[in-house]
């Protein structure tokens, strides 16, 4: 466990975060954009847990942040999917390019 340095775990989480960023920029479909956001949130979870495990083993703060991030991600995904389904009902498409009514 302690023979893997912290920077290698941070490498994985950083790479996963920027994979999510890439997906968020290239995808035009709302559901796949939501999936990219989930990847980014998960990479942050890895960071919190790794910092807690390696740098502050006496405390549990990173664990609690991870639990709250998971909770908020679940709520966010549910609301986003409700919005997507409602949008599909009125526009019969879930492409972000079609969502231009509120554009300034």
């Amino acid at each position, binding site marked *: 466990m302690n023979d893997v340095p912290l920077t290698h775990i941070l490498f*994985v989480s950083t790479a996963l975060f920027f*994979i999510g960023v890439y997906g968020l*920029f290239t995808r035009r479909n709302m559901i796949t954009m939501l999936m990219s956001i*989930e990847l980014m949130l998960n990479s942050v*979870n890895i960071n919190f*847990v790794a910092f807690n495990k390696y740098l502050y*083993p006496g*405390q*549990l703060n990173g664990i609690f942040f991870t639990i709250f991030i998971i909770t*908020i991600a679940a709520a966010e995904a549910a609301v986003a999917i409700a919005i997507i389904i409602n949008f599909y009902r009125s526009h019969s498409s879930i492409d972000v390019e079609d969502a231009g009514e509120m554009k300034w």
Partner: protein
Amino acid sequence: MTASQVIFYIISAFILGTGLLAVTSRKIFRSAIWLLFSLIGIAGLFFWMQLDFIAAVQIIVYVGGIVVLIIFSIFLTQQAGNEMAKPVRSKVFFASLIALLGFILTYTLMYKYNFLPVVNQTLNVNVSNIGIQLLSTTEHGYILPFEVASILLLAAMIGCIVIAMKSPATIGKAGRENKPIHIKEEAAENYK
């Protein structure tokens, strides 16, 4: 290389590979399945760090909840077998440029930073410790965020129902107004 190291690198390669496939696959259903594998890999990473509780929560909430929700919404909104349109080439170029530059910047910053390793302390994460600290009202307790999160979940639940409900205007058009007129006409015809 010890066995633990080998396991770590295998899990990381699995997470990154499936994550990359999840954002590049052009069939949306496959993309969701790759996301599922990536999330399972992250749960495996938590298991590798000996955080059983977080790994179990990860599997229950993400794999059992969010991915299933996403797959349901895919089936509700589109033809799962169809390929999505190819992203514009300039967009792919700039997105990969931003992702690569951001990654290099962030990782060099982290690599240069001198993390001080801790010795003589081990992380004690059994579920009773987590539960006691989560619900304690003392200095390091997390009771306030816990309650706020519960209110957030309630708000999200009500919000989902309100958003996904059919609006009263469409219900009126489809159901309530047409039906009585139709029934009335039928009644009138029967009366004649």
